[in-house]
């Protein structure tokens, strides 16, 4: 791998625009912290912080490493010709599953037992249906890619 293709290190920011942005941004953040302290009860503040920093920690040290590991696995296990479509299919599937976690767990429905209009759908079969559609399209694209590669090799 050559130097330019690696993670770009970028230059340290400088100039008037940067310092103006720092000034404005820090003011906005300070307003946010001030408002938050006023709005949350003392016992709620640590819980808020746990969710705020917990999400970051989970993302940086669990989710992304897992995705990177999955990426290595895909690189080893999936033939190069269909790797692109497979990666795109996995990306779309992961996004759909993540966004569906609250409706899949159904906590919202359980919390309002008398209200059948909350989470009224059958989300497991629905999600499986959408995923099936994603992978049907992925398969078509992958087959097309293989055929194209074969034709190019024949020529």
């Amino acid at each position: 791998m050559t130097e330019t293709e690696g993670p770009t290190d970028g230059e340290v920011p400088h100039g008037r625009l940067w310092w103006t942005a720092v000034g404005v941004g820090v003011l906005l953040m300070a307003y946010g912290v001030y408002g938050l302290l006023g709005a949350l009860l003392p016992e709620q503040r640590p819980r808020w912080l746990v969710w705020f920093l917990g999400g970051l920690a989970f993302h940086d040290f669990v989710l992304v490493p897992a995705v990177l590991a999955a990426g290595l696995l895909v690189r080893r296990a999936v033939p190069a010709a269909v790797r692109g479509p497979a990666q795109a299919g996995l990306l779309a599937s992961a996004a759909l599953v993540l966004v569906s976690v609250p409706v899949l767990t159904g906590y919202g429905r359980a919390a309002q037992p008398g209200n059948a209009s909350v989470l009224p759908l059958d989300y497991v079969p629905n999600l499986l249906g959408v995923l099936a559609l994603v992978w049907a399209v992925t398969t078509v694209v992958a087959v097309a890619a293989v055929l194209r590669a074969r034709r190019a090799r024949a020529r």
Partner: protein
Amino acid sequence: MSATERQSGDAGERPGLASGLRRAVALVAAPPRVGPLRADAFGSGLHDERPAAWLGMSLGVSFTICFATGLLSDLIQNPQAWFAWTPRPAWLYRVTQGTHVLTGLAAIPLLLVKLWVVYPRLWQWPTLRGAVHLIERLMLVPLVAGALFLLVTGVMNIGYWYAWGFGFLEGHYWAAWITIGALVVHLGAKAGVVGRVWRGGGRGALGEPRDGGLSRRGLLTGAWLASGLVVLTIAGQTVPLLRRLAVLAPRDMRSGPQGFPVNKTANDARVAETAVDPGWRLRVEGAVDRELEFTMDDLRARNLSEATLTIACVEGWSATQRWRGVPVRELVAEAGGAADAAVRVESLQTFGPYRATTLNPAFATDPDTLLALDVGGEALHLDHGFPVRLIAPNNPGVLQTKWVQKVVVL
């Protein structure tokens, strides 16, 4: 280490401490290149400036839209002296709040792909290159934590999953200010890169295929397609044309008693008994010449008005119905209240932040602002606010007070 060396270290304690500190700082700034700090730790050519910039621009736009629509929704619910919401156009809140929720959902795949693209920079070496670099990196903590927090709490909230141990409104609202502040700083740091990429420059060539996997352009297309798919499977809870595609939406605009959703049931609001009490009366009081009191029969004997109005919920679903009831302005006029008075509509509910709504004069005088008795040609279901509920154009769903017992002219 020899004895003499240790001795000299002890003797020069101050310089020893200073040099130790310097060494510690140097170690933090440029730790040994092991694990993810190695130059070749992240092999994919997709961890690159150009997809990062394009995804960053998409996120900049979506977070700005989310912030603006969210602030608007907050202002509508907590009006300030300089801001008065209006009942027209009647569809506006449905659009702004639908946009808020759908833009947030669209941002989820974009944010996750973006963070994956720039993840190697978390492990950049040297870790710190001076004070300015430290500021830039520190500001990424509120930026990334805030962005993740907003999207996670938002998605949980539209799924009615309140697992945080703090109020969603306060937690989400103030986190948005923190995040947008960090975003401003980040934009200041990245303006140069974004400009370069926007003009077609930047490192690496978009679309260049690498080792059989996704190209850079393929990655961007994949992220945007995933976004589109998430939106398409949920948008139908507020966009009627897409209703059949909304298979992952937390709400179905036609599901619920009388064919539309309920946010709070009469049982949850503890009004199941008082709402069906035959002694129920609708009272009109406050700054009036004469207080009025109506039984249900009194109201039914009137010449009722009809209007087609939408319940547009903050959670991003909406349902449009045909309502019949008494215009609030008629009641104000009959009681001898001022024509341009504000009006407070109070529920039978004895607790909760939404037990009363204050209508500003524009809402109170709108002919379509009704105390509705009927929906879709039948008396309101108990969970939709029987005996009488408020329904006004362009009014957020939580402010369409149900189980009304009192109209107070202010």
